[in-house]
């Protein structure tokens, strides 16, 4: 850690909901948990988010992101594509894939237009635009972060933080959670964010996995949810 100031600012930018990639439309099943009355209070929300971190964000997304980041640093387009393919294949609910690929495509588009990608990044972004590779958000995030000088662990932390604040924001807009309560949950989740990112950041692509069956079922039921304010 201890990154360059510009890289630090880039990490902040990438983890901020101000980044226009549609993150505020994704709830990754959370809307359905609330639709079905499965979240009673802040404690249950915190537990649920900790489970997302341990079973999905860590072992799947962090592994994808970190490996995309390293492959990008090595100019290894094939490496990026392989990670992208694997992450997409293990993301079960259709809407999770949809949220992830739409945001990934927008992130690539944004940085491609700004001329802010290196050769491997440009090649990856073009393939995403042409529909030749899924372009999952964590993979695009890893590639873009690399170009901005953000190292794998910092990129993983920025992404996990963005994921958690995104879902907390969704919970706040859908349920009845106070702003101080939401901040307390975020604070309580910090050690989990750190532990999960540190644990998975150096894993090989082949280690990529996820196990979140109830979240996946919620994600699938959401397709026919009676209330849908979110894409996923």
């Amino acid at each position, binding site marked *: 850690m201890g990154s360059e100031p510009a890289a630090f600012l880039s990490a902040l930018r990438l983890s901020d909901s101000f980044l226009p990639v549609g993150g*505020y439309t*994704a709830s990754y099943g959370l809307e359905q948990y609330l639709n079905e009355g499965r979240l009673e209070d802040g404690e249950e929300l915190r537990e649920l988010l900790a489970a997302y971190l341990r079973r999905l964000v860590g072992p799947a997304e962090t592994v994808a992101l970190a490996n995309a980041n390293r492959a990008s640093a090595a100019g290894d387009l094939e490496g990026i594509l392989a990670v992208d393919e694997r992450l997409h294949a293990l993301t079960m609910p259709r809407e999770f894939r949809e949220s992830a690929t739409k945001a990934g495509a927008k992130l690539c588009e944004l940085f491609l237009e700004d001329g802010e990608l290196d050769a491997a990044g440009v090649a990856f972004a073009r393939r995403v635009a042409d529909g030749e590779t899924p372009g999952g958000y964590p993979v695009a995030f890893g590639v873009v972060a690399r170009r901005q000088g953000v190292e794998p662990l910092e990129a993983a932390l920025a992404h996990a933080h963005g994921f958690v604040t995104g879902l907390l924001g969704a919970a706040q807009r859908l349920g009845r959670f106070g702003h101080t309560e939401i901040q307390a949950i975020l604070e309580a989740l910090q050690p989990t964010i750190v532990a999960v990112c540190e644990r998975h950041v150096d894993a090989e692509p082949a280690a990529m996995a996820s196990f979140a069956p109830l979240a996946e079922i919620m994600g699938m039921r959401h397709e026919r949810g009676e209330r849908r304010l*979110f894409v996923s």
Partner: protein
Amino acid sequence: MGYRDVAKIGVGGPVGSGKTALVEHLVPRLVDDGYEVGVIANDIMTQEDADVFRESFADVVPPELIEGVETGACPHTGIREDPSMNLAAVDEFTERHPGLDVVVIESGGDNLAATFNPELADYFLFVISVAEGEDIPRKRGPGVVQADLLVINKVDLAPYVDADLEVIEADTAAVREGAPFAFTDCKAGEGIDAVAERIEREVLFA
């Protein structure tokens, strides 16, 4: 071919002001005049809204050119700070219909401050209704002030809600500072011609 190659018309305004009613008049007219039109609805019941449009436009717009876009309970974000999901939906339209001329995007109902991002809408209409109160224009909401065309709908209801159309007109002229506005009754279909003609002149001929 992508979202930059097609004209996009935004329709914003508070909940219930008549955005959907206006779109239901405008779209068949644009189709009649020879344009290929797509429609996007942003709202609470997104897919339901899209289905309402699919039904009312059954003979004029193919179902795949009608889409509901979820905005995560943030309708203003969807049309202003981060229109990326709406633009992605427009991209899907143009991919399948390269000859598409125009997409009408109805925002989920919002407050008077909601405006359209210029990269999302080349032209934006803001619809208010006289039934929301005579003083709406006077509040100088950014939507009311900045819209390319302000539509003041439900003029038929003015007598029932003690709204004086002359006061509304004078206030509106003052806050719009020469920018256009139009009165409509979308229930009876009155005033629609003027709105449609202006859109065609300013957006589609340009």
